[in-house]
């Protein structure tokens, strides 16, 4: 009997403890104290008449659909003159479920001046950043090159180039074989390829220098075309250069832009009490048309691309072409024998 009561007592103790703990906290709040109100992305562009920044309130819900008004006021201050500007909100639909707030202001920032951007909430919480607009830059390209190696010089003070790339804008060169008259063929598509030259920059007196190797680039273009199930040859229409000389803070961790790194909060951020990045830049955009002789030497294809219904037609398909239901009906009727789908 004593044993029975002993075990009963133990049981009662455990049940009692269990009953006590049953009332313990079961809720969980996954959010830390949110102190930073805003994330800001954008930069002051010295060559532009209108400036833009995108503002994200830091919220406790995921999603990019912020179609309603947000509690944010954006003010910029020229720290040299003290001039203040209140930026205007614009709601932009970027795609399904992606509506954002881009604030804009019409003014042209001056080189060498410092600007402060404040994004504040009605309760007084504020994120802010300060930037200095860099000095202008000058780009020189040869007028009449004869070789596929093109020297490029960028001159300016304290250059901090970001995202230096050369964009080859062209269309795939489908083999031109005649088809029966009236047979429709796929339209030509513009498929540009961007080649990075950031790592090939060399310092020279008063600026930076790099040399474009169009022949080497063409091999990379052919690889990219084949990766995208296109004929490997490109008919080049033009080359585009965009040079952006940025303020010092616009430097990725480790000196290399890696989305896996810079996506981390604070990895490249100059926003105080907030997140994101607010920069300042001088930019130069150049469209350049290489001579036909240079294009030929570099290996680019010549001639007109495929067009819908007229001109040369396409009958030789890239090796990765597959008949499937995703293709338009007219393409399937032409390229896919019955029973091949």
């Amino acid at each position, binding site marked *: 009997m004593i044993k029975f009561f002993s075990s009963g007592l133990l049981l009662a103790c455990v049940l009692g403890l269990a*009953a006590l703990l049953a009332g313990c906290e079961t809720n969980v709040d*996954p959010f830390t104290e949110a102190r930073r109100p805003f994330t800001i*992305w954008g930069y002051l562009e010295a060559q532009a008449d209108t400036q833009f920044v*995108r503002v994200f309130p830091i919220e406790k819900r995921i999603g990019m659909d912020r179609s309603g008004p947000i509690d944010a006021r954006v003010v910029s201050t020229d720290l040299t003159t003290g001039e203040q500007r209140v930026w205007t909100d614009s709601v932009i639909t970027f795609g399904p479920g992606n509506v954002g707030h881009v604030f804009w202001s019409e003014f042209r920032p001056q080189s060498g001046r410092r600007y402060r951007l404040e994004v504040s909430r009605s309760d007084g919480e504020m994120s802010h950043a300060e930037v200095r607009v860099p000095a202008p830059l000058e780009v020189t390209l040869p007028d009449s090159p004869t070789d596929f190696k093109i020297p490029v010089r960028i001159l300016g003070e304290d250059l901090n180039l970001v*995202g230096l790339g050369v964009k080859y804008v062209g269309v795939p060169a489908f083999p031109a074989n005649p088809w029966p008259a009236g047979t429709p063929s796929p339209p030509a598509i513009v498929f540009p390829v961007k080649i990075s030259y950031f790592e090939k920059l060399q310092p020279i007196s008063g600026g930076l220098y790099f040399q474009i190797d169009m022949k080497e680039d063409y091999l990379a273009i052919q690889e990219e075309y084949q990766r995208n199930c296109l004929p490997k040859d490109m008919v080049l229409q033009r080359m585009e250069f965009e040079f952006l000389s940025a303020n010092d803070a616009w430097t990725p961790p480790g000196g290399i832009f890696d989305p*896996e790194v810079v996506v981390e909060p604070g990895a490249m951020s100059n926003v105080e009490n907030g997140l994101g990045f607010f920069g300042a830049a001088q930019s130069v955009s150049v469209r350049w048309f290489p001579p036909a002789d240079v294009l030929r030497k570099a290996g680019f294809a010549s001639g007109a691309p495929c067009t819908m219904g007229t001109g040369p037609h396409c009958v030789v398909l890239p090796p990765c072409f597959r008949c499937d239901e995703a293709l338009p009906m007219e393409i399937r009727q032409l390229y896919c024998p019955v029973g091949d789908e």
Partner: protein
Amino acid sequence: MNACPSPIHGMWLLLVFLFLSAETTSAQTAVLRGFVTDDSDGLALQGVNVAVRSPDGRLFGDNSDQDGVFVITSLPPGRYFVQASFIGYQTVRDTIALAPGEIRSYNIAMEPGEAELDEVLVEADREGGAAQVTSGMQTIRPEDIMLIPAPDVSGDLVDYLTTLPSVVTTGDRGGQLFIRGGEPAHTLTLLDGMYIHQPFHVLGFYSAFPSDILNAVDVHAGGFGSKFSGRISSVIDVRSRSGNKKAFEPSVSFSPFLSSAVLEGPIVKDKVSFLGSARVSTVEEIAAAYIPDPLPYSFGDFFGKVHAVLHDNHQASVTALHTYDRGILDPNVEAGDAEEIRWKNTAYGLRYLILPRSVPILGEALLSVSRLDTELGPPDEPTRTSSLAGFNLTVNITQFAGRSEVGWGFFLREPAFESNLGGLFQNVESRKDRSPNPGAYFEPDVYIGSGFRVRPGVVGQLMGNKGFFVEPRLRVVWERSPHRVSGAWGLYRQDIVGLTDRRDVTNIFTAWADTPLGEATKAMHGLLGYHVSPTSWLDLSVEGFYKHISSLSIPEWTAFPRFTTNLQQASGRVIGADFRLEVRRPQFYGFVNYGLASVTYTAMQDNLLFWFGEPEMDFRPPHDRRHQLNVLLSTSQYGFDMSLRWNFGSGLPYTRVQGFDGFIYMDGPVNVSEEPGLSRVLYDRPFGGRLPTYHRLDVSVERTFTIAGAASATIQAAVINVYDRANLFALDLFTLRRTDQLPVIPTLGIKLSLQ
């Protein structure tokens, strides 16, 4: 490559030398050995005390092992009085005469009944028991398992495993067990020598091992010996029982979660028997009808074994196992988006056991093939697949010399894996590979005297293209009743890994692969324990342990809200202590297990410096449960067996968030009016938060009735989570939807048996 043959060659020379020296020894003294079985069913009896006494009073003896084998060596020629005794069986007495150099086969069949009090006993450990832990090893018997309340009349091994002090589960679904800080893929699970790669079912109450088929289970939580290799954390060595060799015994059971059938009996009476078990879940059909939570789980297992006594000194068995699981762990997702996980284990094995007539050794040969197939996604078009298959050929030899013995053996394994990860780990491609793994081990177990027993060991193995590795190990035990002090140390390596994204507890898809980030994962174990039995009914033990793990592969952290990631290398440290108290009274049994542990991983992700300002970062992985307490009370009153289990665990780590915003990749001139940007999660420091504590009370009451003649019915009523604690299983940070573990569940089960 040139370095490889040398150590193997040297090891073989040593083995031959030992073998010859043992033969020399046997030429001078006699050996008595054989199998001990239960005379009523022909099953092997483990732990039987076999003692031989010479006319001048000298005492020799041994305890039978899991196969019923006993071996008594170094017996001077002459006449001996033999006695075999075991609780619940009539003592066997006999007199034999041994000639010089004789190796006598002497099989003993024991009849159930009352043992006599004037037994001659040799030193013996009590097999099993909650506090019986020696150098990290604990033996679990089916009767231990049956004490744990569960929603089924027949018990299951996993119910007992989850009561062990430092065994952590992430929930009552998912089938993931972490033993002393090790990941599930770091645990070697063997069934009669066959590899079972995913032994736990999707619902946490069940594994591939129902208690109906078990003989005994050795759980090595760490510091395991050289006989085991290829995994770095722990070993679950399951030994199934053989079928009844005298008579047929069918049984069936039904419960809201599971229905099962077991059939065993002789194929050739006294020689060959079979044992078959089939279990099929009834969760979706029955339990789901009265439990409010969604239970989209289906699982089952089929086990078969044929055991044959080929002769009086050798036996063979063939074992087969098949399991299947299907389930959706995150019931919050929309029906169309539900990511269903499925896996299947299939294993076949042959085991041959021999006591040769000419040498005093026990030989064991194991040949098995195992396969695990895992899929995630729609049944017809899985988005991720992984398979692990391979064979295992192992030969184990035990040479006996008085109170010491030498274990040695060799093995050849070749796991082959094939996976299509659907981009889960972006720096691991879909792959198909093999990793040949030949090796050998040598492990003498030497009784030094004064209660000291030392077991040094070494494993030498070639791991695919990783190289040849030597893993030294050591086990020391000092015992002087009522005290026992034991310790172990060892190095361990593993060249195949199970890659799992532990950022999300509902994502249990495990991809088996060759170690993706370089060298084999390795670990160093050290442990020291003390056990005392102050009275015959009380056992206390404490064991401290330390593990250091390196070359781990874990997911990288990213602020992109996506389900794929890269892998990064990490190392881990586990430190802790297990405290156990066990009480055994005639009508009461209970234990208290408390585990205190700390698991720390050090991440080495490239961008940690930019993110946190540290090149390496220590964090608590999601299975770091600091405190775990299990209390079991069991009593038999008025014909009813009642059990109560209370389980408490401190909160598991998880990653908190600061909020959500958007990200625009500003790697150059970007027009923010046109660039759509990406959603971003502002994670706080990884695993810096802590979930609420976990605790649950389960109770069961059971009674067996005789229906007619040899037929009986066992009825069990149980309540799981008696006070309906809302224990958190998973929290979706994106939607803030929580998934709780199972609510209060009453169950009623019945088992019908014919004996």
